[in-house]
Each structure stands twice: as structure tokens, then as C-alpha cells.
């Protein structure tokens, strides 16, 4: 069956292309996340330091690299959002697996956070990730919107600009997507 096989290869190609771009900003995103985390720890998260600023800084660091040269800022933000999502979900999965694997390996937290909270964050993230994949099947643009807003911190106007739709359309799509995703992430919560 040469036809379908070829199609799949092409898909795989573009995915590996994307993966390469992701690899490149992977570590950077990770370090930025840690920085962001350390700000939260010190209660320093403010309007000036949000994920948008973070993504913007990442952009400044990376913009001169050859294969990002032709990338526009919004497009870069979209890539960064994907990287952010992947870093977080990978970590959540890894920790989840470890928790199931052996008791002795659980991370001991000393910051006043209960292990439960951490656990729920892991599981919620994985659930969000999976629900987002499902949403992508139902409406790719909507899934992309959630990705950009949540993982890259784009605001309504930026999201609208990136996707080429009106702001009210973004607001409307967001509300429905949020409700639906939340119903999938924590279905039994009151």
C-alpha cells in the first residue's frame, strides 16, 4: 500500500521537523519554567513577570538562530507554547510513572505543599493534555487557541491576531473550550 504509507511518512517528517524546533527551545523553556517557578516561590509573580514575558524573553534569546530566522514572533510563540506543553506533560508523566513504580522514589517536598496538590497537578495536566488532543480533533483552531493562551500566556487580542479571528470569537471559543476541558480534567469535582 504505497499511498497511505507515503502520507504517513510525510506526517512523520513534519512532526520530526517540529520536534527538532522543539528540541531547540526545549531546554530554554525548561530553564524559564524553573525561573518562573522560583518567582512564584518567592511570591514575586507580578504583572510584569508572566508567561508572556517569559516567552518573549525566550524569543529574544533564540531569534537569531538560523532556523528560526524566518519565524514571526506570533509563530514563535505558538512553537513555544507547544514546547511548554510538552515539557510540562513529559514531567507530569514521568512523575506519575515513578509514583506508580516505587514508593521510595517519590519526591519529598519541603515547601509547605502537600503531596496531594502536586499529584493532582500532575494528573490534571495529563488530563488536560489528552483532552486537548481530543479537542484538536474536534476543532483544531480551538485547541491551538487554548494552547497559546494557557501555555504561552497570549492574551485575547494576541490570540485573535495569531489565529486571524475576532476577539469576541476568541472569547466565545475560550469559554466553551474552558468549560468542556474543565469537565474532562476534573469531572467529579463539585
Amino acid at each position, binding site marked *: 500500500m504505497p499511498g497511505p504509507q507515503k502520507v504517513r511518512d510525510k506526517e512523520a517528517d513534519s512532526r520530526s521537523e517540529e520536534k527538532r524546533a522543539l*528540541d*531547540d*527551545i*526545549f*531546554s*530554554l523553556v*525548561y*530553564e524559564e*519554567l*524553573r525561573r*518562573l*517557578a*522560583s518567582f*512564584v*516561590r518567592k511570591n514575586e*509573580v507580578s504583572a510584569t*513577570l*508572566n*508567561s508572556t514575558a*517569559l516567552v518573549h524573553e525566550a524569543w529574544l*534569546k*533564540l531569534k*537569531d*538562530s*538560523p532556523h*528560526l530566522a524566518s519565524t514571526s514572533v506570533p509563530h514563535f510563540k505558538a512553537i513555544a507554547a507547544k514546547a*511548554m506543553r510538552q515539557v*510540562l506533560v513529559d*514531567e507530569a508523566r*514521568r512523575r506519575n510513572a*515513578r509514583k506508580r513504580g516505587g514508593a*521510595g*522514589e517519590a*519526591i*519529598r*517536598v*519541603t*515547601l509547605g505543599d502537600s503531596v496531594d*496538590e*502536586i499529584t493532582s*497537578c*500532575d494528573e*490534571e495536566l495529563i488530563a488536560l493534555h489528552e483532552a486537548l488532543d481530543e479537542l484538536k480533533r*474536534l*476543532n483544531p483552531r480551538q485547541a491551538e487557541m487554548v494552547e497559546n493562551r*494557557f*501555555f504561552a*500566556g497570549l492574551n485575547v487580542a494576541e490570540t485573535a491576531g495569531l489565529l486571524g479571528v475576532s476577539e469576541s470569537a476568541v472569547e466565545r471559543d475560550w*469559554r*466553551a473550550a*474552558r*468549560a*468542556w*476541558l*474543565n*469537565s474532562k*480534567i*476534573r*469531572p467529579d469535582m*463539585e
Partner: protein
Amino acid sequence: MDRARWERIQTIFHDTVARPESEQQAYLETACAGDQGMMAEVLAMLKADSRGPSLLDRGLPEVAYRMVGASIDSASFREFGPYRLQRILGEGGMGVVWLAEREDAGNLVAVKFLPNAGLSPARRERFAREIKTLAKLKHPYIARLYDAGALADGTPWFVMEYVEGLRFTEYCRQVERPIEERLRLFRKVCEAVQYAHGQEIVHRDLKPSNILVESDGTPRLLDFGIAKELQSLDETADQTRPGLRFLSPDYAAPEWVRDGTMGVYTDVYSLGVILYEILAGRLPIKNTAGDRTGDATESTPERPSIAGKRSSSLSKAAWSELDVLCLKAMHEDPRERYQSVEGLSRDIDHYLNGEPLEARPDALRYRLGKFVARNRRTVVAASLTVAMVILLVVFFTLRLAKERNTALAEATRTRHIQRFMLTLFGAADREAAPSNDLRVVTLLDRGAHEAKVLNSDPETQAELYENLGQMYQRLGKFQQSNELLQLGLEKRQAALGAENPKVADSLIKMGLSRGEQTQFKDAERLIREGLDIATRHLPPDDLTVLRARSALGVVLAESGSYDKAIALLNPIVKRPPTGEEGTYILLDSLPPLAVAEQNTGHIDVAESLNRRALALDRQLFGNSHPAVGFELAELASAEATLGRVPEAEKMYRETVAIYTAWYGRDNPATAQYTNILARILAQEGKYVEAAPMLQEVLPILEQAFGKSHLYVALALDSMGTLELMRGDLAAAQGHAERAVAIDKALFGDSNHNTAVVKAHLAQIFIKKEQYDRAEPLLRETVKALTERSLPGNLSVGGAQALLGRVLLREKHYRESGEQLTAAYAILAKQPGTSYLKMLQQTREDLATVYEALHQPDKAAKFRTELVANQPRKVDAPIGN
């Protein structure tokens, strides 16, 4: 579920939430038409919609914290093997370093972990490479690797020698270590880097925090986290670039940042920057303007001797050697750098031994190329004067280049002068322009000396003398200027005879210089002499004749003979000479004519002349040339004086934009114009915009002009006013007091500037109700201003109004009444509404005074005026 169904669900969801709660259930049932699955989906969404914040709403920082935050300051263990962790020493791009104690041996070690190692294979690879690199390096100045492994969860670690010491730069700063000691220490660092290079390892992240100095003075190199083996360089273009690079931009070599090329020269550059820092006490300022497009290769940092406070223990010549050495190490172009760390070390040895440096460039061609390459852009000038001198040199160069085409005989001479100029200024240019007038003067002194011993033909000599003389004139060094111009004149007379038109040119130059020194009689005599010679030998429309007429006009306008000046200058301006030289004559004639017209009451004519000069500048130099910016600022200043503040604002904005584009934001001239713009903005009440401008500008001005310069005082004064308006009185007082102190030191206690700044400080005290502190300040202000101003001066009125208020608050009614009455007389005469607020306040104060003095009639008079002049929108009175 499919797409269509999801669309349908969303529609129902939106339609439902748009309805009142009481109708929702019914609507839902109708809309879903018995589709229980759909109904359940929408219901779940409605529930989620009304629920509080979830993961999605918490935002990324929170999630980041929960996901990767834990490893920041809590290891997942406290001990492993024989090591017990104590505290975090630091965390960088490549892991967290803990201080640990080896329990069996009791010694301290540093343990580096790679947290969240599972995330990225690339990070794991780099960590492994660091271990491999460290294992290869065994040198007394490099921290040693002891052990390496991985935790049960896969987190890799390695143990290395713990170095207890100070950052390299901090160590150097301590007790003001002499330069030579710093250099010897730096030399040791070079040795360690050189050793690593010998092991084919490039560090790539050399910076002061990676070089610690132990208490016995031994430097230790740390953190080979992004080091690279030279032999593997070609294999894969360098995978470390770009995403995985966490380098420190201040120390990273430009070519590496730009396109990833690297080699030993990468480390040479970083060492150069570190050397700069220990010499100058700060990092070189990079050209950061324009971020992406800004071509870093064009910028040259200020010489370290100028950037830093030059230690007096070293001679000028020694500093000059160090400048060359340091700037060669950190040259933007790797080909121009030392080709190895060894080369750098060798030159440091040469320096320490008092031998000539290998780095000393002597090729004029190199300087010339550099000079020409950047005479259109990024003239990194350190002060307005220097900028002017450099422009002047460019101007001369271009003009001389033109002359070369006119006569072959002159070619040699022209080249000679050009060479001389470039040698003279080439040095200054190459190592960035000098930071203050003194340096330019030194340069000129050197030039003047060389010109005198230069045994060339008299005409060359004469031209050199005159060029230098004019530069001294621009710098206000009139004694030298006079001397050199006189020498030039004598040379010309001797060589060409007293009647030669070129002698006329010399006479004109001298005359203009005298005019600037306000020796108008001499000036007029010299120029007339020149004009006579020129008229005797040349046709009336010859450029030399016209130049003489224009010059005479300039001097007459300066000396106040406005009508004569207009008579001379008007024909030139009406029928301007053609050609480039002619245009310059026109350009020289316009401003004095404008002055003359303005002073004979023709303000409109003057303004149109100024605008014409501006247009000509634009035409000659392009819209973005500093000459245009300068002209605009002149116009703006006039506009501001006339009270046309918005126009002034617009022009200053353009000036600032031009200077920013030309010299960069960090340039002192740019900073000073920004300073003035901020002042104008503050005057207009645009505090939000003005405040950050001043914040940005102050350190630049302090750096360039010193902490007690007029410009700094100006900025501080504006900042004080801003803080007063914003209500931060403590900050306002701090700024204002500094401004007063500076002005006092500069101009004396009774100077006009000092007086005005004092009044501003007094306003702060009034606001704080510290009338006893405001009173003496205002008394001094009123006294100083009254002595130096014409009767009816507005500043005097303003100060008296303030003093009157203070006295009123202190219940000294009679004297308060006197001051307020005087103020009232001045303020009431001001046209327009700009001073209405102040006037109204004075009326109110006067009314209060007369009530206290039991003169109800007078009080009533002012109360009536107060009400009659109430603006429609009531503003809060000043200072309340």
C-alpha cells in the same frame, strides 16, 4: 463525538448560558431533543463553567511552580553515598550545585545535580560532557573533579572540589588592588585557560562568577558546563547552539552569538571583557540599540582608561598601552584579536616588563579604513564637544578630499593633511572617542606640537595650524586658538605675500575667532582687512569675497550692530552663492541674520530664517544628521522661551530621535537632550512619560560628566519636581537637595541657576509644612534673582509669591503682604493663562493677609478678583 456534534454542543452551551437560570433547564431539554448524551455533555460544561478557577485559570507560573519548582531548593534527598548536602551554592543553566560534606573525610565538596534530567536527552548529554571535560583537566587553577554517578531516579551528579573564594572582579575591587597586581592575577587565569586550550577544550563561558579567587590569591576556574572539545567542533556544526546556550551575553564573543562560530578566540574575547572590567571597574557598554538589526561589529567600546576612574598611580602612557591591549583582546572581529590566549599573556608580560606591545597597531591604512567605514554611522562619541570635533574632522576630510580633485599640485599637500588628521584623531576614533574635553585638548596639544615640528611646506603647515586653531576655538581654548591662527597667518604671509587671497582667508578665520571671544573691534578690523585684500584681487562674486562679507556680518550681529549686519547678510541670503562652498557660506549667514532680525523686532523673519537654516541642514546632511537635531534643539529652545511649549516638545522629540539613532541612547548628548525633553514634558504635566526618561538619563549623565555637572543638576531638579507632583516628598527633597548642592558648587550661592533650584527645594518644604526651612531658601532666591534681573522679572515674582506664602503661614503678615503685593504686581501683568494658577493663589494669600491685618476692604478686593477670575474648571491651588 465528531466535529458537527461538538459544534452543536457549543451552540447549545452558549445559548443556554445566555438565558436566565430559571429558563436554562427547559431550554436545554428542548434543544437536545432527547439526546441524553448531548445533554449530559452540556450539563457538565455548564457545571464546569460556573465552577471556580481550575488548572486552566491558574496560569502558567503556578503550574510551573508545581511541576518543576520543587527541585529548586529542596533536593529529593539530603544525603547519598558518603556525602551530606548542606546548602545550595548556586544554580545555573546546567544544574544545581550543592555544598556537601564528605562524612568520612570531613572535607567540603561541591555536588552538581541535573534536576529533571529525564526531560531532555540533550541536557543529559551536556551534563555527561561536562564530566568528561572536567576529568581531562588537571591544573592548579582549575577546580578538580572527584566523583560522578547517578541517583536511583536517574538524576546525574558529579562531585568536585569546593572552591571558597571571591568572584574575580570582587577580589580585584577589594582594597583597591593596584593595577599591576590585578594584571598578574589575570595572567594566571590566562594560564589556566591556555592549559585547557592545550587539552583542546574551549571553556566558552568565562566570566567573573566562574573564576573564584581563594584567600591566598590563587584563582580557580569553574563551570565547564558548556565547554567544548575542539576536535569535535566540525562534527555537527555545534549542537550547543542556539537553543541550549545559556551564555552570559556580556562576556560572549559576538561571532558566537551571531552565527555560532567558535574557537580559542571565543575565550580570548571573554578574557578581554573580564580584563576590561578589572581595568575600568565596569563592563563595556555595548551598542544595544535596535536589538536585532544593530550591527555589533560597528560599535567600539569606550577605552577602559576612560570608562573607569583612571587610577592616578599609572601614567597616561601606561593607560594607553592597557587600552590597546584590552581592546585588542576583545575586538569584535576575531581576526583582529590575539590569536591565542598565549598572545594575550605575552602582551601582559610585555606591559608588566615595560616592553612595547605586540598589539600596537601602526598601520595608518587600518585606522583610515576604520575611520571611513564609520563616519556615517555610530560615531561613538562621549560628549557633545567630542562629537562636534569628530564631525569637524569628517567635514575637513571630505572637503580636503574634494580639493584633491581640483589641482594635482595640491594633492600631495591634501593627503598630507588628511594623513595628519587621521593620525591625530585615528587613535581617538579607534579606541572610542575621549570622554571629556580634556582628552580632546590633550589630543589637540599633541597635534599642535607635532604640527610645529612637522617640517613640511609652509602651506601645509599653515593649513594645519588653522585647522587646529579652529578646533581649539570650538573647544573654547582661545589662547591656543589665537596662537595657532596667528602662526597660520604668518606662514601664509611669508609664503605667498601679504596680498594673496589666501591670506585674506586666514585673516577672516582669525577675525571670526576674535568675534567669538567678544573682541569685536579686533574681529572687525581683521575681517575688513581680509575683505579689502579679497576685493582688490578678486571679482565681487568670488567666494572668498562673499565669505568675508558673511564673516563681517556675523561679527557685526554678535556685537550688536544689527542694521549693518542685516545690510551685509541680506544680499547673501537673498541671492545665495551656488556650489557646496556657497551653501556653507549661506548656512553661516542665516543664523546671525536671524539674530539681527529678532533683535530689531522682526521675530517672524527671524523664525523663517531659522527654519531655512534647518531646511538647509536637512538638505545637506539628511534628516537624521545630528546637525539637524542640533538646529531643531535651537529652534525648540526659542519656542520654549516664547512659551510655545507643545512646539518645543515636538522639536525636542525629533532631536532626541535623531541623536538616539545616530549616537545611541547611552550617548551623553542624547541623554542631555532627553533630559531637556523630560523637563519640557514635566512642565506640561506629562509626568508619566517624563519620569522614566529621567531615570534612564541620570546615570548616563553622571557617568559622562561626573556627579556634579550642571546637566546632572538639571535632571535632579526635574526629578525633584516630578516627585513633588507625585507626592513622594522624601524622594523629591533628596533630588532637589543634590541639585542645589551641585549648582552651589558650580556657580556659587547667589547665581541665578542656584536660586531657581533653591526655590524648587523650598516648594518641597512648603508642601511638608516646614516653613522655617523654606523661608531662608526663598529669601536667598528672591535676593539673588532681584539683583540679577530686570524689574518685573517673572522668576522674581514667582519667588516672592512663594516667600509671601511662607511668611503668611508663619503669621508674619506685614512682610508677607509686602512680598505678595510685589509678586502680584508682576504676575498680574503676565499675558495668557499659564500663570493664572499662581496669580490666583497669590490673590487668595493676599486676601488672607489683609483679613489678618484687619483691612477688610483690601481683603474683599482680592476675594472679588479671585472669584471673577475663577477658571471654569477649578484647579487645585499650587502646593496644596
